[in-house]
């Protein structure tokens, strides 16, 4: 299929700048306020989709308050950037229990592979997206921060 070039304009159309005026009319019509597309971000919070892959969180059991993590280390192995470190110890019954969990957010690329790998509903990428910080040091999230979830600074204007 050959693309069709528009035919050459007639002299009359050329003299009266029809091609240019067509463009002008289109841009003029878009000035109506209803066509506006801007979101006033800090003032109006954007609605992020449910599946959004944002700040990580370690979920606790809502009833008992204990962590859902079984320290299987699958997330750490799935991570392409090797940014997760899971620490555990054996309990008396010989089961694994989570002690520390470090998530290096500065290297995370939010691919969601850790979330996919997690066999329990523990590790989750939440809808928090305001992750800017003043230092790289703060980007390493420990277990406490991961369980509390991100507390972004809310800008009002």
């Amino acid at each position, binding site marked *: *299929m050959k693309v069709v070039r528009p035919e050459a304009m007639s002299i009359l159309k050329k003299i009266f700048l029809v091609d240019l005026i067509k463009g002008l009319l289109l*841009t003029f019509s878009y000035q109506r306020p209803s066509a506006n*597309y801007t979101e006033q971000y800090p003032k109006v919070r954007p609605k992020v989709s449910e*599946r959004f892959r944002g700040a990580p969180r370690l979920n606790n059991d809502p009833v008992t308050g204990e962590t859902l993590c079984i320290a299987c280390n699958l997330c750490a192995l799935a991570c392409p950037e090797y940014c997760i470190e899971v620490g555990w110890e054996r309990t008396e019954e010989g089961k694994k229990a989570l002690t520390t969990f470090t998530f290096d957010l500065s290297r995370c690329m939010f691919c969601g*592979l850790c979330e996919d790998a997690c066999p329990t509903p523990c590790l989750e990428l939440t809808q928090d997206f305001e992750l800017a910080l003043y230092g790289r040091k703060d980007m390493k999230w420990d277990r406490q921060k991961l369980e509390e979830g991100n507390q972004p600074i809310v800008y009002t204007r």
Partner: protein
Amino acid sequence: MTETRGKSFDMSTDEQTLFDANEVTVSMGPQHPSTHGVLQVRLKLDGEKVMDAECVIGYLHRGVEKLGENQTYGQFVPTLDRMDYIAAVSNCLGYCEAIEKMLEVEAPPRAQYVRVILTELNRISSHLLWLGTHALDIGAMTVFLYCFREREEILKIFENYCGARLTTHVFRIGGLQYELYDGFEDEVRAFVKGFPEKVDEYETLLTENRIWLGRTRDVGVLNKQDAIDMGVTGPCLRASGVEWDIRKSNPYAAYAEFDFDVPTGEHGDTYDRYLVRIEEMRQSNRIVSQAVEKIPGGPIRAKVGKIIKPPVGDVYHSIEAPKGELGYYVVSDGSTQPYRVRVRPPSYVNLQALRQMVIGHMVADVVAVIGTLDIVLGEIDR
């Protein structure tokens, strides 16, 4: 590169030697508003006329191929999104299909359809970004914002589907990770329905505009033979008159089941490339509108083990990315990590043609030609 084909300057004439002393070398980029990233073009100018051009690339080199050798097959996928970040879905599709080919599995039909829909939406969004920036380079700044408005709708669909807008990591080897969300079809249908008239709007602003015609017609001409010789692919090749689209010639995913045309140009100039891409957006829209009506049911992921270990051997698989032929050459040694992953980046090969396209033109045309090649530096430098 030193060989000069096609349009070039005869440096031996008296007129040229007379003005040799006036040549000035201008470094366009790596920080320049319209080199689309960190491309540097060293221009040799005689007044405003380009006598020679040399591309300097590699400012964004991250060693993607090396990274691939050190990650498992599945882990490498999100890294690929960072190559052509405008068309991350296409990158993902090509790689997943290459590995599926090695594993001899095929994604289930439902996954194939969703792949087609998302990839074509991605093609539209990539072309929209191209149109916006190309028009902005030539000075029509409003088209840019209009294009981004429509692109935003597509990105919203991506975000709703997989949770990310740009670096989507949308497919997995063997099919899909995410089931379609409620309302996916309706959102896609709404977009498909409204999109053609938006394309008409861009065309109102540009196609017949005398300034646009003057800036694009007969600028950066690449004839058929040169285009083939230089390895140019995608819309640039088709605008030169070669009817080759991998979606038609070697159908992958579910493309064989859809009805669409492959637009080709005739003159191989910037204006033809513009028309071809505009038409491609309409055709992609057509594919999406067909696909969304008949998404089959069934599973979304073929049975692929948690550990992906393709057999020893190598495979080359290529797809039609928005920029051209995106090829993956994967060598497996039977372990969980690829022995070698080679990406054939379309922009990288297309950019080679820049030199012969700009020689003899003016500085302003260099900007137009860079824009019309539709390069993404993340893919060129990898």
